[in-house]
């Protein structure tokens, strides 16, 4: 579904990604791990067309590099930012409507699906999104992107700073997303969650991929974890 080859990305003069290779298959959950600042967020932003980049990003066989972010979104790639970039002065319902790409709801996800998954959002549907708690805002950003009916959704640090109970809810949503045939590329700091839900994992260091494997491989490779993951 997604095939990234030799991806280089730049912020102004600084060269952040040095040739990233990775793939995500149909209906697969893949995690991208690594310490802060190794380029995980930049990788998904580059795939999304939000930073200047070079190389190749093929999505369903089509080249994405060179397209604008809104064009990439229309091809079916969804992006959930790490900073909970909600539209704070708009209501929860308006935020969700903005996730939709046209006037009509998609077949896979509608407003009612989101409300059924997170009743809390329904209760607060007509409140300004800015007054929601951190956890609620995180759910809103996730649901908002899903409303656009992506076939692959890239999620940046969804559980950062969330209470354990909400982390559980978010993990349940991932299962639901996969059940409906949507692939997930997850950037995650919490190793336990990533190992729990992913089918495959990539580990990044210094702007490229340093390890690729299944959860079992990560669990067994203490040396790799010590070198690239543990603080």
């Amino acid at each position: 579904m997604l095939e990234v080859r030799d991806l280089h990305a730049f912020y102004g003069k600084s060269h952040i990604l040095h040739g990233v290779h990775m793939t995500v298959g149909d209906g697969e959950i893949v995690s991208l791990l690594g310490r802060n600042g190794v380029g995980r967020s930049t990788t998904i932003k580059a795939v999304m067309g939000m930073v200047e980049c070079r190389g190749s990003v093929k999505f369903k066989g089509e080249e994405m590099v060179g397209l604008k972010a809104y064009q990439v979104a229309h091809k079916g790639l969804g992006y959930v930012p790490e900073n909970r970039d909600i539209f704070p002065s708009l209501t929860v319902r308006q935020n969700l409507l903005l996730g939709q790409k046209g006037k009509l709801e998609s077949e896979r996800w509608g407003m009612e699906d989101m409300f059924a998954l997170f009743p809390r959002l329904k209760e607060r549907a007509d409140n300004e999104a800015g007054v929601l708690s951190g956890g609620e805002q995180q759910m809103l950003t996730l649901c908002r992107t899903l409303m656009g009916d992506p076939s692959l959704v890239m999620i940046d640090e969804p559980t950062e700073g969330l209470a354990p109970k909400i982390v559980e809810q978010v993990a349940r949503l991932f299962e639901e997303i996969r059940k409906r045939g949507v692939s997930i590329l997850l950037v995650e700091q919490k190793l336990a969650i990533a190992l729990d839900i992913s089918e495959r994992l990539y580990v990044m260091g210094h702007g490229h991929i340093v390890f690729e494997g299944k959860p079992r491989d990560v669990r067994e490779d203490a040396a790799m974890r010590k070198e690239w993951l543990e603080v």
Partner: protein
Amino acid sequence: MEFFVISLLNGVSYGLLLFMLSSGLTLIFSMMGVLNFAHAAFYMVGAYVAYSVGLKIGFFPALFVAPVVVGLLGAAVERYGLRTVHRWGHVAELLFTFGLAYLIEETVKVIWGLAAVPYRVPAALDGHLFTLYSTSFPKLRGFMMLVALLMLLSVWLLLKRTRIGLVIQAALTHPHMAEALGHNVPRVFMLVFGGGCALAGLAGVIGGVAFITEPSMAASVGPIVFVVAVVGGMGSLAGAFLASLLIGVMQTFAIALDWSLAGMLGAIGISVNEATPLYSLWKLQISQVAPVLPYLLLVLMLIFRPKGLLGTRAD
């Protein structure tokens, strides 16, 4: 009483005209971060186009045609000028609009000449709407208020009740996120820039007949529109509305008042005459300092409340 009501009506109608101008400026600024120095130039183009088109098809059709022409011009400027300049940062954009203002002014001089054009009040709007005591209130002023209020209502409905309005509101604060959700934000920028220019053009159609249509008309409203945007709060439509009325009313009253510090001191028994040091300052009448008042307000506002009356951003 008579003086008060008439001055208030004049002030409010002038304020509403200022709002037609500043609303576009504020929308463009809050969305794109571009302080459009050429905004008043689009106002002037609106007046000239309405004059020329009006000669052929009449004032009222021109009231619709001219803003559309100015809006298309604005959209083209955004699409083929600003969008390219954007990547070099805000200073480059500022210089671009600064140069554009002169370019438009010189082009207007080449096409329509240096002298004022005879853009006159149409017969239907000539005359008095009503007479209060002994002072009459012109129909044109009433029409100015009506158009401004209708414009305010349509902009509000567009922003609050339509899907494109929702996208505009989202892109106002979080353009990157809105784009990542699949909204064509560059096109929204073009629409907002064109729309803002069209509003300036509409103000020009009316301002042109109410005042004088000449090449210096942009320079005569340009600075005051910036004052309105800053005092109201950069990026706040409601703030621009409030500040427009405030400055409109303040200006109108100030011009009409002949009070001076010397007179006020005289009234409480302190005599000020030629022998008093700085007598020329003391005897200044409010009407004489009226043109300075908005800028005084601007300076005070920047010192004491830099984000403006209702502004949300401090930068």
